[in-house]
């Protein structure tokens, strides 16, 4: 069997106002990045129910990115702070099911940071490749 390079699947929850727009700008600017990310648009990272992350991982996603506005820039004033407070809890939950906490990341990307978004996806794809496939992915694929 020829071993193909592992192509991770990363689910990115992007807030509508900053990070989704930042991803749009990466496109408008033609900043290329790996095809491994799938973006789910939410209005604000404040909306991020920890179960969304856990469900993405349970279904076999290799990494989850939560991207929102920089501190102080939230369209709703403090949604990103609410998310930040939850993040430790999310990481602990991820660890408690036996996954590396690094599979989940919280990053701030503004509407003007297309280059940053592209760089982030390149870097995170690389990082998840090093971590290898999620055990949950292997389980769900072998069903």
């Amino acid at each position, binding site marked *: 069997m020829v071993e193909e390079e592992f192509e991770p699947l990363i689910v990115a929850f992007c807030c509508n106002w900053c990070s989704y727009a930042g991803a749009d700008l990466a496109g408008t600017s033609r900043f290329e990045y790996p095809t491994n990310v799938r973006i789910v648009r939410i209005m604000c990272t404040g909306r991020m*129910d920890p179960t969304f992350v856990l469900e993405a991982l349970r279904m076999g996603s290799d990494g989850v990115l939560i991207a929102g506005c920089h501190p102080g820039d939230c369209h709703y004033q403090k949604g990103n702070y609410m998310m930040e407070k*939850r993040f430790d809890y999310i990481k602990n939950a991820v660890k408690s099911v036996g996954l590396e906490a690094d599979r989940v990341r919280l990053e701030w990307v503004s509407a003007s940071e297309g280059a940053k978004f592209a760089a982030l996806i390149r870097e995170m794809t690389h990082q998840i490749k090093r971590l290898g496939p999620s055990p949950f992915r292997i389980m769900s694929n072998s069903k």
Partner: protein
Amino acid sequence: MSEEPRIGVFICHCGVNIGGVVNVPKVAEYAKTLPHVIHAEHNLYTCSEAGLAAIKRAIEENNLNRLVVASCTPRTHEPLFRAACIEAGVNQYLFEMANIREHCSWVHMHEPEKATEKAKDIVRMAVAKAALLEPQTEPEVEVKDASLVIGAGVAGLTAALSMANQGFKVYLIEKEKEPGGITQKLYKLYPTLANSSDVVEPLIEAAKSHKNIELMAITTMKDVSGYVGNFNIILTEPGGDREINVGTIIVASGASNYTPPKGLYQYGVYDHVITQRELDKMLSEGKIGEPERIVMIQCVGARKGEIRPSELEAFPKSDTAELLRKILKARKEEGWPYCSRICCMNAIKNAILVKETSPKTDVVILFGDLRVYKEYEDFYRRARDLEVRFIRQVEEVPPEITQTPEGKLQVVAYDALSGLEVKFLTDWAVLSTPLIPNKDEIMLARMLKIPTGTDGFLMEAHLKLRPVDTNVDGVFIAGTVSGPKDVSESIISGKAAAARASILMGNRKVRTDAITAVVDEDLCIGCGLCEEICPHGAPRIEEGKSKIREILCRGCGSCAAECPRRAISMRHFGDNQILAQVRSLLVPESLKEAGD
């Protein structure tokens, strides 16, 4: 759900923008295999008249009740497609967009196969969400027929007058003692060589005497709360604070002039090295006399260097005056990366003014690139006819300035055309400097939640399609606060911003997003956590249950995520809808049929 979803999917080629990378017909074929999809087709431009007609026709022919368009970002054409849905009798919230351009074809241009696979995934996610969409009614908000204009330069004055003439009350605030902004301080304007006071003074007089305009000098905005149609603003005036209530806001607070650091081209070292602004002032006072020669140097402090990664980080998130001060100080030393747009014409204008008063003076303009667009080309020709000399430079060999023992300046420059070094003894060296963002404006943007670009200027909602809108509903931008503009461009943007704000105020009502929180009262235990965390005061506990006041709810969803009973969900971004996207993406093909 009341009715079985019947989904129509439209995949857009966007000319070659998507179709040149993604195999669009293949994605359309794939879409037909997805659950609940009744109809799928691909269009050259789904946003075109033909594309929109195809949507309406398909709705009618196939009795569709859910629509997915896979094309660009919803930030560009979602309103257009939603309008098409409404026309065809489908509630606009039963529409979902799949972004396969900005998030796929444009970022994976060299990986067509992988991009096609990704596009299929993106479409599958959108279809999964679409199947669970529900119709919504948008709440209506009253719009106060008053506007706040921040900054009384030409853009602000123009915007204020335009709204006031339509009968709206305008509060026009200016942080300086006198209105008029930067333009007020200029001598003559290109390309007409009109006195700038002839342009600004009538605007100031008209604003001062207009019954609908309240012009307040030495006044700044201290705080803002509320939302489109109903902003509460606290102003700081010399006498103290004052609260006003407006429906719209126009930010026209301008830009600053770059002052070169001491020593750059010997500025601040030799008295006869000055900026164009200083030359302008001397011309207005008739003090320039009849010098033998004047050498102008373009792009001083502009088009220099790259945007540093540290800046990419810091600019958009700098929320303290201290951090901003640091960035601006570093930029002063290094210069700014962008072209300031107006300096070429400004230099040509001053060159012509010198030549017209003192034809014997040799005027030399050292430039890298000369940008004289539209009819300004004639102005440039006029300068050439007056024998103003234009000498092209290369960035690597900037001109050098020294002083001779006799006290004259010597400019040594590299002439890129001849490849030779040229030396000029000159009476004056004049530096052309850019317009730059200023600290107060960036802090103002932070207060209003308008993002700034990496250049520090306020960002428009869309560079091409919404140039005077911002990401904040009801807040518009005019003039140089969003980047360098000349007077006529500032006036155009002032009028444009006024028109955008007047649409809202003229309609008296605006529909706001239906994306609001909903409480399941059976689950709610009235703990009050939602009331505590909501930044907008939307939830209130009444009779032991949380009640959401829709008009105050902005739809962030923090309460939905925090509710310990999971009693709160969001319209249009429900738990089930978000999870459906996640699940549709990750369940392997073999299991898809076995879904719930």
